[in-house]
């Protein structure tokens, strides 16, 4: 290899393979499943997307059936909605552009707000598990279910 001249390696881009209607694979099913769990157990009604079913009362079979109908396009839209929501509700949003070192210098008010949200989330998780431990265990992936 000549040190002064870079070696150019051509890489072909795939063409004509885009398919937003492809059924979601099990990796995406689990990503959606976890986000559904967060949406319906941890977010207040005003923060929910309004586009999904609550998985809490569903059996594993029902949830699998529900998710198997999802396409990659639909999953992507939902994941985007949820990612945006999580950005919106996070109290340390103003820290986004800071480095992690910068993030150490969080204001007292932000720390208080963060603690409040964490406490709320913890309370919500605790009460959720007390109210419906069966539903919670149903929300966990079965050992024999397909995974990715």
């Amino acid at each position, binding site marked *: 290899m000549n*040190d002064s001249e870079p070696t150019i*390696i051509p890489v072909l881009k795939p063409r004509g393979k885009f398919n937003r209607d492809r059924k979601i694979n099990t990796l995406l099913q689990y990503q959606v499943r976890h986000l559904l769990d967060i949406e319906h157990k941890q977010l207040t009604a005003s923060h929910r997307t309004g586009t999904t079913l609550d998985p809490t009362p569903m059996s594993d079979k029902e949830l699998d059936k529900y998710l198997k109908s999802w396409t990659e396009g639909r999953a992507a839209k939902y994941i*985007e909605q949820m*990612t945006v929501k999580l950005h919106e509700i996070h109290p340390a949003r103003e820290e986004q552009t800071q480095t992690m070192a910068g*993030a150490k210098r969080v204001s007292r008010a932000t720390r208080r707000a963060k603690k409040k949200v964490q406490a709320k989330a913890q309370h919500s998780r605790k009460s959720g598990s007390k109210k419906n431990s069966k539903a919670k265990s149903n929300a966990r*992936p079965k050992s*024999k279910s397909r995974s*990715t």
Partner: protein
Amino acid sequence: MPPGLDRLRHIVVLMMENRSFDHMLGSLKATDPRIDGLTGSESNPDTKGATVRVQPKALYQSQLDPDPNHHFPEVDRQIFGGNQSPDRVANMQGFVASYFNEFRNVKHSHLIMNYFPAQKLPVLTTLATQFAVFNGWFASIPGPTVCNRAFAHYGTSFGEVGMNVFYLGKKYPSIYQRMVKAGHTAKIYYYDQASSTLEVVNLVTDEPKVFGTYDQFLADCDSGNLPEYSFIEPNYSDHDAINGEELASDQHPDHNVQAGEVYIAAIYNAIRKNQSLWESTILLIVYDEHGGIYDHVPPPACTPDEFKASSDATGTGREFLFDRLGVRVPAVLVSPWIPKGTVVPGPAGRVPDGRTFDHASIPATVTKFFLGPFDERSPREKAADTFLDLLTLDKVRTDSIIFQTSL
């Protein structure tokens, strides 16, 4: 301290999805016998007893559909050939039989033995041969994505062998939390909001401060503002975006492998084109697990984690003590301080001076370099080998490779 380490400021990890070492890099043995790839004689029996040899016939897409099973019980079958006896030995003879169960078609089950000729993967094979390739890098668990990726983030999966991501309140901090606490910088770059991160728990607790997008990664490379540690995720779905159609780049079957090649090239190019960043950065390209696809090297035993998965959780009727690694995956380390053509021998015990790596090696390396001694770590991570000793050159390399993507 070697000059490469002295200059090192950034560690970047790109974790792709679901391909085995032999499937992606096995062909390289033909040109470099030091690489523990395929001779062409490796085989598995099919369900009718016929011998199925490895073949260089892998396609970018539409071949491994349905998705090969890589849940714990099936990986156990793939590794041990279905042998359940107490004194069983890993023989890597169950891949074809396992894939048969997905489609109940004998001919289709043979496709699991296919591998890519090197010329079909110009990006990964070029980086592997120009920099360092690991003969002995394994998935951390013989199981699926989430528990394996957890090892890259936490150095353990906290006893999980499946897809459960709810690690909240667990005893060991993630590598990002460790870095933050010590005043360092770290970030997970996911592709975009429509693909987002698989680190859902971190997304809930630490969003948005430890997260960025692929576009931000490119901008950070350009401006020289890359964090000290970066973990990059590919695009997990075909979806619409402002700039048009985005093709999944994760290489998860049945997503297009070529799209992943383009993605790896873009990550490499982003670092390479900023000379100062290039000289102060290492890039590790690694796959989370094998995705049910054939590899010929039996996973070795490893330091047991302090956790135990119940026989119900494993689905095999046996407990798992996290004392054996998962199937071997491609791992390539890129830096101008690494001699061209470095082959890291492995795994330990298989070859002289062999070394064994798994995803716990990632937080172990980052912690060792940036934080030094750190006790709040799993036994597996504490025992994991690290890889910065591969930066052995006294002078930075001046040769240069650029990937040029074209339509």
